[in-house]
């Protein structure tokens, strides 16, 4: 496994605001690496310094072993980028954008094929301004893939897209990984990081507060399971007493949530169902909820991820 991206003790501040406070991580060849965190956590600053668009204050940044500041020309040939805020001229057509950008690189992927892969062939003659948000993002992914890059940077890829478009883009990113490319992305959707990334770095206030695979993070930090059900009437006191030692009870009118630890001898769900049955409580819509990265974030930072 080769290191594709290397970040060591990287710092960047704007005036008196510290955007990134000495972070270190690396990205291995062929993985999808995600930086997650709320707005202002330092994700975009990090990715833009790696792209050579901004200058770091201190620390070591390497992409494919090269310095993004001094070797930016070579790196721009070898990497693909999708930026958080960028545009094409309104009246540029989809095919024209791909054709034009193809001429910027010494060697490119076949853009006709990219058009097809990204489901844009029907839009090839549409003006950029007439595309939907999802179509624009797909076009930007196509442009990022145009130089047939070894590593691709995606900044806030699915922000502002509806869930359907978001899922379609996730599939595209998985395809990119299958082709052996390395992906470094930022997102403030925890679900996106969880579903898409091999490893995630959770950023908050310019620091990495956790870094591991989503599963490992949830296993070690979000060691909680929830049993959710609804009832008619009130819970008998006997049920509440019996629950002590099993889990924490939370009642929101007819909706009841039992919080408990995972990895117990008897699974939480069977314990709860047994207790409910023995107490004679009629319940409906019982389901279990696993911890998510969202819970991990809450636990790490004491606050919820909000957009």
């Amino acid at each position, binding site marked *: 496994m080769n290191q594709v991206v290397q970040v060591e003790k990287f710092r960047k501040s704007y005036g008196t605001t510290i955007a990134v406070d000495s972070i270190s991580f690396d990205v291995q060849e062929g993985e999808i690496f995600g930086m997650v965190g709320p707005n202002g956590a330092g994700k975009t600053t990090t990715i833009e310094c790696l792209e050579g668009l901004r200058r770091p204050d201190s620390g070591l940044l390497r992409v494919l072993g090269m310095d993004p500041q001094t070797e930016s020309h070579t790196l721009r040939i070898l990497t693909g980028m999708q930026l958080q805020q960028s*545009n094409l001229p309104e009246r540029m057509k989809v095919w024209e954008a791909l054709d*034009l950008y193809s001429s910027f690189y010494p060697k490119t992927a076949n853009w006709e094929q990219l058009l097809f892969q990204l489901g844009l062939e029907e839009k090839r003659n549409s003006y950029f301004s007439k595309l939907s948000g999802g179509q624009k993002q797909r076009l930007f992914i196509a442009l990022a893939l145009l130089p047939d890059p070894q590593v691709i940077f995606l900044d806030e890829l699915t922000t502002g897209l509806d869930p359907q478009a978001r899922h379609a883009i996730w599939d595209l990113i998985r395809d990119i990984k299958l082709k052996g490319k390395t992906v470094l992305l930022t997102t403030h959707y925890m679900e996106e990081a969880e579903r898409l990334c091999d490893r995630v770095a959770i950023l908050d206030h310019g620091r990495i507060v956790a870094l591991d695979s989503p599963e490992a993070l949830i296993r070690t930090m979000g060691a909680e399971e929830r049993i959710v059900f609804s009832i008619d009437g009130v819970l008998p006191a006997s049920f509440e007493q019996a629950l002590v030692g099993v889990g924490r009870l939370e009642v929101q009118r007819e909706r009841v949530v039992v919080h408990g630890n995972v990895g117990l001898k008897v699974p939480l769900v069977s314990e709860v169902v047994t207790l409910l049955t023995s107490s004679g409580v009629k319940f409906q819509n019982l389901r279990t909820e696993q911890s998510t990265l969202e819970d991990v974030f809450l636990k790490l930072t004491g606050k919820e991820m909000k957009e």
Partner: protein
Amino acid sequence: MKSLFKMTWMEAKLFLREPIGAFFTLVFPLMMLFLFGSIYGNKPTSLFNGLGTIDISVPAYTAMIIATTGLLGLTITMSAYRENGVLRRLRTTPISPLLVLVSQVIVLFLMTTFGMVLLIIAGKLVYHIHFYGNALNVILGFILCSLSFFSLGFVLAGLMPTARTAQVVGMVLLYPMLFLSGAGFPRELLPEAIKNISVFLPLTYVVNLLRGLWVGEAWSHHTTDVIVLASILITGILVSIKTFRWE
């Protein structure tokens, strides 16, 4: 080279797809020509030293096209590209910012030339305009005037914080200048006091030079014009390099 060609071709298509830019460069000057032609005709008059209204209007309207493309077309395109993130997207590729600027200059120069050619054709066919100059001198003068005003456009695009202010400032500079410099209508018709103001307007020197070369005056008659326009060009290039921003 391939990317410069593609970029220039693309920008030319974009220019023609933007109705307002194409209108002011290609259509509006013709409308002015036909309007004043229908009022005054092209009879020789002593006011214009034995030339007709249309004879002197063709080089004057050419100056108008140069000023409009330079101060409005170029300024609006460049500042909007920067504001909307078009330049930001280009910056992630290996191309140089110079490519963007050069292709912009080529396209606007070609469109300005096209606008002038339309004026000449219409003037020739409808009003039988007279030309006493040397074609090569007129072309050289036209190139100097165009580049000088384009560099002003880049300066404006670089200095103005937003596309909106760039557009407003461009218009505020352009419209009074069109009328006071003799580009929109003959300076001979202006009162003395206003003629004095025109000394301070860069467009005046474009009108002087083009009208002079059009009737065959020598370059030596126009050293002031050439010095002023060349200084604007050089200062403009230096300032626009200093003030160029990707975002």
